[in-house]
């Protein structure tokens, strides 16, 4: 059976988010997949060009509307449902964008959603993590209904570029609600690599003990050219902003190198990093669970170790 898959592009109006290329990689692992990408934007051409370059993509379908300037789920979902006709699968990334949006699409189509696909077992069978990644469940979706799903981006490498898929403007007409309005966004401003796509990440936990002490984490990260992450406890304590949180309720990441500093290794945090290439743990408590999963462990006082390590690099 042929699978026709519509991937919903995540973007900021000018640049395609790397989550999209990972979602396409998941879609491409379905046998016989024909993949289209939907770009809903105020002005789509720049993002569409990027999407059209992704391997395995047959077509890019654009919907240009001033209402699509900001990715509001209540505005986007009815448009996606208009586009969804004829597709066996509709995929989005399991980022806050996709998590907000895709269940609305699923509800409009009258289906449940498969959240956080980590592997494709068949056209309608997928594995996903539950209980903060303590358990992996295989799900079988009904074959006679569209599969609406989000893709756990840390489980996939971005699909390659070099393609030149056709770009078509989709002609849809649907009433959009006025009940939801964008006000503003306060994006964390940082010159450091983005946490989600960084090859290296240095992360700190509650043991850093203050916002000021996080300077040690930033100094090491800058020396390595790494992104910065944190545990829930460190974010709750106000040491760092929310977008740095890694784990069950934050970002799920898969860098080549993850350096966990003063992080005990609660399951809720570990689920966010278990796909990392190499995990380094630095903690003064030799019993900390993080050492059970770390590739390289160092028992020591972070306030002594961190400056030494930063100097040594």
């Amino acid at each position: 059976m042929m699978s026709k898959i519509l991937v919903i592009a995540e973007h900021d109006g000018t640049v395609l988010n790397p989550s999209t290329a990972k979602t396409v990689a998941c879609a491409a692992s379905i046998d016989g997949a024909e993949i289209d990408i939907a770009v809903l934007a105020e002005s789509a051409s720049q993002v569409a060009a990027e999407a059209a370059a992704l391997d395995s993509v047959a077509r890019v379908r654009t919907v240009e509307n001033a209402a699509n300037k900001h990715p509001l789920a209540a505005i986007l979902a009815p448009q996606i449902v208009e586009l969804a006709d004829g597709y066996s699968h509709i995929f989005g990334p399991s980022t806050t964008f996709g998590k907000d949006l895709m269940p609305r699409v699923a509800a409009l189509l009258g289906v449940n959603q498969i959240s956080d696909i980590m592997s494709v077992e068949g056209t309608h069978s997928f594995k996903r993590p539950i209980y903060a990644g303590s358990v992996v469940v295989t799900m079988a979706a009904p074959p006679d209904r569209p599969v609406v799903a989000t893709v756990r981006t840390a489980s996939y490498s971005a699909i390659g570029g070099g393609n030149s898929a056709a770009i078509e403007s989709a002609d849809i007409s649907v009433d959009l609600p006025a009940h939801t309005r964008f006000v503003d966004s306060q994006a964390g401003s940082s010159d450091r690599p983005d946490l989600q796509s960084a090859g290296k990440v240095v992360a700190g936990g509650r043991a850093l003990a203050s916002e000021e002490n996080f300077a040690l984490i930033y100094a090491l990260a800058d020396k390595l050219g790494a992104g910065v992450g944190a545990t829930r406890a460190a974010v709750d304590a106000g040491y760092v902003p929310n977008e740095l949180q890694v784990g069950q309720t934050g970002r799920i990441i898969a860098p080549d190198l993850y350096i966990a500093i003063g992080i005990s290794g609660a399951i809720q945090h570990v689920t966010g990093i278990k796909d990392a290439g190499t995990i380094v743990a630095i903690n003064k408590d030799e019993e900390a669970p993080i050492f059970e999963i770390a590739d390289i462990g160092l028992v020591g006082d972070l306030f002594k170790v961190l400056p030494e390590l930063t100097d040594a690099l």
Partner: protein
Amino acid sequence: MEKILVGLKRVVDYNVRVRVKSDGSGVETDGVKMSINPFDEIALEEALRIKEKGAASEVVVVSIGTADSQQQLRTGLAMGADRAILVETEESVDALSAARALLEIIKREEPGLVILGKQAIDDDNIQTGQMLATLWGRPQGTFASQVDLDGDTARIVREIDSGLETIEIDLPAVITADLRLNEPRYVKLPDIMKAKKKPLDQIPLAELAIEASPRIKETSFEAPAERQKGVMVDDVQGLMTALKDKGLV
């Protein structure tokens, strides 16, 4: 507004290390500590604060599940909810069915605001609030870390991957609570006693006559691939050597 509806889900406690049954047919929940889903506690706390500020007159907690969920509803009543509703079923309930059942409760209760947790820590689905808002034809403010009500609208600060986003939505609406929306209060003993006298209605799920949803079957459960414990190094020099060996620095 008159009323805020809050969803409370009974889940395996946050601190329990969940295990797969030996035959792979499910997750071991026998004898395991159960609690209110932590995000739902935050949702309830927010509703109580709104009521305490005088912006709502009643907080109703609702759960969908077996008779055991009464424990979590009683805890919700002890926290300060006025009334509880248990939609009772022995079956597991998928997200779409939960949203449809909650919609029926909304039709009966006509709340001005519905607050749910952003996700349940058992299935980690992150769907029900968004589906409920959709079926209700109302806006959603998901992953909320700040809620400010102003007449018929609400300003929601949302935690998103790139930082924070503020949206304005018309009420009624569904809000889903993120971690930093508030810190839920502790329940005091006298409140537990008082909660026993508060009304708790039980409604069989069948009575709500919701449409059957296309079920996604859970065909097998397994433990995830575990990472192996690696090497311990003695000092920074050892760490540098190990990193160099792997070509990482």
